[in-house]
């Protein structure tokens, strides 16, 4: 890892998308997702336009389609559920190749597929072009409560520390001849999860002492708050704003 500060979802780059301020990208993502969610499912053309918009952002940022495709696997469990809907949904029914299919179920499945995919791809693009500290700083600037930003920051910071600890505990178990693989051996895993919780709790206390020792009094120091350039705002919000317009048109068209 040459950069030393990359995370698995990040694609290192210097594109115009990478350079946009984090808070604008977070705001853009929220706006885009809101537009997608508000779009009536039958407005197929609108979802086509959203896909094109996402494609443009991915192209500008130089994020390979393969990378996005792989990361999209996260939605597979939800889609499996969605695929069942046409077969278990309510009337009216239609038939396809002799199989009875619920129209409402089909529409619900399509809604999940289209909206979830748009949201997931947009999130992947945010994560791929924005370092975690930038996302956290962006949340801060968007006035997300400081406690929540701090908790998210600690989670990111200590995820690896705690997973390393878990790894060491597993090695210690394996070294003494115990490698739980089967479901009925889950008790050992549960016990080690308990031990891990205690260890993490104690670490939390030590971290707090270290914070207090450096003058912490209950509020995290604020970060840079210089206003964003108008051009950056325009760039970051262009596609989400177009998506908003598309959503409004689709809503009007559906009446």
């Amino acid at each position, binding site marked *: 890892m040459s950069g030393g500060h990359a995370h698995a979802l990040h694609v290192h780059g210097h594109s115009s998308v990478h350079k946009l301020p984090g808070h604008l990208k977070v705001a853009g993502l929220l706006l885009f997702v809101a537009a997608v969610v508000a779009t009536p499912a039958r407005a197929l053309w609108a979802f086509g336009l959203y896909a094109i918009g996402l494609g443009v952002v991915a192209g500008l940022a130089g994020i390979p389609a393969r990378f996005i495709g792989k990361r999209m696997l996260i939605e597979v469990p939800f889609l499996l559920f969605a695929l069942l809907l046409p077969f278990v949904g309510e009337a009216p029914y239609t038939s396809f190749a002799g199989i009875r299919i619920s129209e409402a179920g089909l529409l619900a499945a399509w809604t999940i597929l289209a909206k979830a995919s748009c949201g997931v791809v947009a999130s992947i693009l945010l994560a791929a072009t924005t370092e975690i500290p930038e996302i956290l700083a962006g949340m801060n600037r968007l006035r997300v409560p400081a406690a929540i930003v701090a908790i998210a920051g600690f989670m990111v910071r200590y995820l*690896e520390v705690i997973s390393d600890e878990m790894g060491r505990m597993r090695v210690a178990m394996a070294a003494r001849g115990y490698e739980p693989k089967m479901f009925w051996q889950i008790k050992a895993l549960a016990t080690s999860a308990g031990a891990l919780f205690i260890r993490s709790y104690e670490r939390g206390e030590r971290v707090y002492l270290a914070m207090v020792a450096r003058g912490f009094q209950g509020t995290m120091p604020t970060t840079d708050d210089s206003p964003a350039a108008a051009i950056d705002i325009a760039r970051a919000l262009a596609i989400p704003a177009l998506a908003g317009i598309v959503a409004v048109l689709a809503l009007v068209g559906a009446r």
Partner: protein
Amino acid sequence: MSTSIAVRGLSFSYPGGHQALDGVDLTIEAGERVAIFGPNGAGKTTLVLHLNGIHMPADGVVTVGGLPLDEKSVMEIRRRVGMVFQDPDDQLFMPTVRQDVAFGPANFGVAGDELDQRVVSALTAVGMEHAIDRAPHHLSLGERRRVAVATVLASQPEILVLDEPSSNLDPASRRELATILAELDVTVVMVTHDLPYALELCERSIILDSGRVVADAPTRELLGNEALLTAHRLELPFGFDLRTV
């Protein structure tokens, strides 16, 4: 020389009733480097947590640079006394090195360009300026410990308190940290089991046992007293000969 730290009749017991400190008296002059030895459970960490106001003196007085430690002075004392904890993963809790080093001075009211300068100069002092935008968990233990020292230096403390600074470091990291500590122009208090490290860095040492100061002497003299060391579960490493150092 002016007095940097004065501890008078300090006693402390934990809620369970364990008497961790039992009448500690200790004076450290400005610019001194003092090592604190003692067996596990002797009260070393409890003592240093009092120097920074993490523990408030229940019985006795702690004075830092002439300022008595109490509820009103605690923030100023925390600025004056920088604590470097044993595990850098406890000390480095922010997403990036830059934010972590800025945490202390920002809490003490430093902002803007001065804050940026403090961060850069503290990291330069420990030779870690290249890591300014990296995440702490991507650094080696030696690098993390150096950054931990920088997080404290950024508040421009008068006294640096280190808990087991050389523990778990590989020999090269241990030496690099010693070089950095030797160059700092601050009073140093170092809790350690690493007696040769103390000999290298600290001209004076004290032994704490059962919550009391049982010895206070020049490090070389103290380490030469084998009977004293043995009585307090301290030992020089195998093959270490004071006469040849």
